[in-house]
């Protein structure tokens, strides 16, 4: 046993703690100098699992560890959430204090004052807890390289949360920089269970490390999880496409009453407000022992909720993904999920928020928000039983993040291009970057793309000798303010007249509000008084009814793992006599579906035709999730529109999609004559469809902001985001027209293809449909399957008619309506 291990062992003994197997393995691997990924559930002691070996190593190398001061920065600990840092600091500091190691644990996030940050730069704490953004900000300061010379280990907490995001790419870039500054540094990550742990490890440690130098350590602690659906008495009671599930409230409350503390997860912030409001109305006794927690609420309020969760003072907390992560709330006994969690991993993670006592079973209840979601209850249970988990797919070739990072380095200590290119190619994200691509990014930040005119005044990064640097102070300041990859909609602060801050709300919601209107926010009835600059001023209202704010935010699509289970369940429903309580409840709906149309078995693909006053509807049901349906809808629309001039509007949900047109389509004939579901020319056809341009245009908003083409504004200054939105679209048009080789435009198309259309999944789905028999049903009115799609108002368009013809047709339709109205 090494001296460090002895010190730790006696400390553990004094506390009568015993190391778990995975903790012992981690210590051994760390002391061998390995890097690795630790996979253990929350609450199992993974924080100490990673921290103790660091301390052991330090004691081993510093026999005078109790008196030695000024060891400088030893540990850099990245966390995805600012909120996690406080608890983490407390735990780490406690260990150091008890072991008499005079280490300081520091926090450096957006919440930390400028004064404290300046003090840190003078005397760095030994351990720094930091977000990816704040780490990049540190790179944008002068002489930052020196800060990292004594680093021993890089740690990424909740790595699965960062993986697959642009913040993950930021982390990759930062880690490869630090490995370059301090080549002996080790890298450790902690991750919940995901499908691709091995890949997660590779992204974390970079491409320059051998397999022998890394290890994945899994804890053998298995949590028992029980899944139960809350069933409606009668299935007709459920709205077909409602987003609430609130009418199951009376069945949900007994579950809440039976446990000490319950977390109720909803999929959107609006839903938390709705649930809070309904419960307060119907169960007034809950006032005071129930709280609301979502990302738009004031940090102080959220802290209060978390504090009281610990203290067992709350019986119910209604929350969104804002409580997915982080510290454990031991009193939580029960978790309720309202609406489809869309993925088995997310469901599992939420389930894991309950039952922290050793050996306890985590219990999670599923509340469907519309009847078809009952199928998902069964599927989630099966997915968990079979331990099938989704992958977190890492991003590649994010040139927007790279451009931002290069300017960051240029604002800081500057860089030399050849050396840096080498370094960056050691990341997973940029391993296949070509020299042409690299030169383009350098050109983008120095000359602003191809410079054709003599009188150009582009100013960002300048080249002095071999060094890329930023000299212009305005450019540097603006860049520091824009570091980050989270592009948010413009939000307004909600404050009482007296100035107390409540939270934030989106501009869209407030823009059409008139003074005196009452809305429900943070669980309060608030009267809108006025908007002053970026602040919505409100006062308390006694009025009972009010509006519920909506926060935009993408709808999460169904994962392919979960969709496969749903298809299997439907197939099963046709043959199985005892398919379980959820499917039995669903019988009336399934019966109506088979009467009006059909329930497809696994060898069939269902298409429904229907005519209403809106036009001619075609419904397709691949059960593949929203994104794949979006891609397939625009693909089919494009292919049909090549055969005859037509305009479609498209809608989709996780089960199917709709093509709506103002003239009838004979789908039988079309399918007989053309292979509409072919995978040949798939990529070309998708790229030519109008929608890929529209999707790319939307992706470009984030890309252009990250790459510094759009400036989100100075904090506190009123910059309208509508203006920003228009500008990103305008930039997209102007750049597409005048600089078609622009790599950020290409990236926008690629992101649309990979993330928006999920091309690989789309291809697989088409191949599957190819093997199936196509079933076309003409229905007199929309079926249970079709109805939820029909009422969806978020629509896309695709057209092959001449723009001029479309305008003329719309004008004629408009006149016809006018004439009809005049007659009445």
């Amino acid at each position, binding site marked *: 046993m090494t001296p460090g291990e002895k010190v730790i062992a006696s400390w553990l003994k004094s506390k009568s703690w015993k190391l778990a197997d995975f903790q012992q393995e981690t210590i051994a691997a760390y002391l061998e100098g390995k890097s690795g990924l630790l996979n253990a559930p929350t609450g199992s002691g993974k924080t100490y699992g990673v921290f103790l070996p660091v301390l052991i190593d330090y004691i081993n190398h510093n026999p005078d560890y109790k008196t030695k001061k000024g060891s400088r920065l030893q540990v850099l600990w990245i966390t995805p959430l600012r909120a996690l840092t406080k608890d983490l600091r407390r735990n780490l500091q406690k260990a150091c204090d008890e072991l008499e190691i005079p280490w300081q644990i520091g926090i450096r996030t957006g919440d930390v004052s400028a004064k404290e940050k300046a003090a840190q730069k003078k005397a760095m704490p030994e351990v720094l807890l930091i977000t990816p953004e704040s780490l990049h900000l540190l790179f944008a300061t002068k002489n930052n390289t020196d800060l990292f010379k004594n680093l021993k280990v890089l740690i990424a907490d909740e790595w699965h949360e960062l993986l697959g995001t642009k913040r993950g790419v930021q982390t990759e870039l930062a880690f490869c920089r630090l490995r370059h500054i301090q080549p002996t540094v080790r890298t450790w990550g902690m991750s919940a269970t995901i499908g691709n742990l091995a890949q997660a490890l590779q992204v974390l440690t970079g491409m320059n490390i051998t397999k022998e130098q890394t290890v994945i350590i899994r804890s053998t602690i298995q949590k028992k999880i029980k899944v139960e659906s809350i069933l409606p008495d009668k299935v007709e009671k459920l709205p077909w496409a409602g987003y609430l599930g609130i009418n199951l409230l009376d069945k949900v409350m007994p579950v809440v009453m039976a446990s000490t503390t319950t977390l109720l997860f909803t999929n959107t912030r609006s839903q938390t407000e709705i649930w809070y409001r309904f419960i307060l109305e119907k169960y007034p006794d809950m006032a005071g022992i129930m709280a609301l927690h979502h990302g738009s609420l004031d940090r102080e309020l959220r802290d209060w909720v978390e504090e009281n969760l610990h203290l067992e003072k709350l019986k119910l907390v209604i929350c969104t993904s804002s409580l997915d992560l982080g510290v454990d709330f031991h009193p939580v006994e029960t978790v309720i999920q309202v609406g489809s969690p869309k993925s088995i991993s997310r469901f599992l993670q939420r389930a894991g928020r309950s039952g922290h006592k050793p050996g306890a079973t985590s219990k999670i209840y599923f509340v469907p928000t519309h009847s078809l979601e009952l199928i998902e209850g069964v599927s989630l249970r099966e997915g968990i039983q079979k331990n099938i988990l989704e992958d977190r797919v890492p991003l590649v070739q994010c040139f927007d993040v790279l451009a931002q990072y290069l300017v960051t380095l240029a604002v800081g200590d500057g860089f030399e291009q050849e050396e840096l290119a080498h370094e960056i190619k050691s990341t997973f994200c940029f391993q296949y970057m070509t020299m042409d691509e690299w030169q383009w990014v350098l050109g983008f930040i120095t000359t602003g793309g191809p410079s054709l005119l003599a009188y150009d005044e582009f100013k*960002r990064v300048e080249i002095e000798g071999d060094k890329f640097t930023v000299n212009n102070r305005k450019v540097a300041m603006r860049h520091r303010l824009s570091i980050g990859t989270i592009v948010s909609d413009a939000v307004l602060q909600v404050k009482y007249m007296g100035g107390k801050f409540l939270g934030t709300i989106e501009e869209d919601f407030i823009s059409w509000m008139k003074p005196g209107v009452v809305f429900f926010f943070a669980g309060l009835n608030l009267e809108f008084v006025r908007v002053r600059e970026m602040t919505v001023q409100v006062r308390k209202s006694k009025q009972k009814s009010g509006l519920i704010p909506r926060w935009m935010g993408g709808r999460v699509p169904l994962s392919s793992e979960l969709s496969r289970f749903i298809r299997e369940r439907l197939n099963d429903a046709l043959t199985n006599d005892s398919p379980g309580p959820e499917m039995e409840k669903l019988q009336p709906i399934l019966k109506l579906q088979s009467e009006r149309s059909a329930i497809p078995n696994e060898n069939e693909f269902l298409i429904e035709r229907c005519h209403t006053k809106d036009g001619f509807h075609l419904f397709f049901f691949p059960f593949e999730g929203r994104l794949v349906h979006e891609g397939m809808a625009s693909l089919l629309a494009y292919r049909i529109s090549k055969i005859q001039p037509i305009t479609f509007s498209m809608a989709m949900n996780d089960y199917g999609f709709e093509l709506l047109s103002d003239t009838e389509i004979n789908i039988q004939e079309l399918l007989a004559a053309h292979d509409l579901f072919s995978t040949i020319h798939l990529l070309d056809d998708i790229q030519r469809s109008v929608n890929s341009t529209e999707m790319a245009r939307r992706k470009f908003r984030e890309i252009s902001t990250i790459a510094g083409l759009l400036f989100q504004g100075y904090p506190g200054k009123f910059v309208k985001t509508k203006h920003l939105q228009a500008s990103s679209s305008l930039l997209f048009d102007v750049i597409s027209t*005048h600089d078609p080789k622009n790599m950020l435009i290409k990236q926008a198309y690629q992101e649309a293809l990979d993330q928006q259309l999920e091309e690989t999944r789309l291809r697989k789905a088409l191949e599957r449909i190819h093997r199936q028999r196509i079933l076309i049903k003409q229905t007199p009115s929309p079926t249970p399957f079709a109805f939820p799609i029909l009422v969806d108002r978020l629509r896309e368009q695709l057209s092959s008619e001449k723009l001029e013809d*479309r*305008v003329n047709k719309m004008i004629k339709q408009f006149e016809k309506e006018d004439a009809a109205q005049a007659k009445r």
Partner: protein
Amino acid sequence: MQLRLKDNTFTLLEQKAIWWEEERTLLISDLHIGKITHFRKAGIAVPQQAIEENFEKLDAMMNSHDVKCIIFVGDLFHSDINSEWDRFCAWRNQYREVDMILVLGNHDEFPIEKYEEICIAVYDKELRVGAFTFAHHPKPILEQDEYVISGHVHPVVKLQGLANQRLKFPCFYFGEQQAILPSFGEFTGGYNIEVLDNDQVIAVVEDKLIRIQ
């Protein structure tokens, strides 16, 4: 497309300008010269090629009409002076025989002498020619018999059809006593306008003009 207003003939051009026959005058609004360079100076890489597009469109109109005068109804130049001004001066020099007049807009911020140096007459708020008033902002209160031609709002018209179809185009707007020009500049956005029953709206659809109402 031609329109008669107060016994005068106005031809709408697909370049998003108006040709006033009787006065042989071009009416142009919201050109925003200098905007692209203004962005580039701030380190924002808007492609330079878009600058030339404005001048190509201007030249095309100059070549196809016998122009005596141009009235710019505001926002000719975007913000501070920069090198695009030299490009504009060179263009101005090509057409020395043409009178050019600017009615100032909210983006026209730099000294008036600069315009006067290159023979552009500047009017502060409005300019009256015959029966017409030219101003940058649409006027909230109108005198009797006044007809105002303005810009500033970058008007866009939204169309809606069956089966949830939606389209958006820049447009010319003609009301009872007021007309609004679409923005001419390449790198400018647009905003929806409210339209009354008797108003006329003509959309610019790619390179065609289509009467909407």
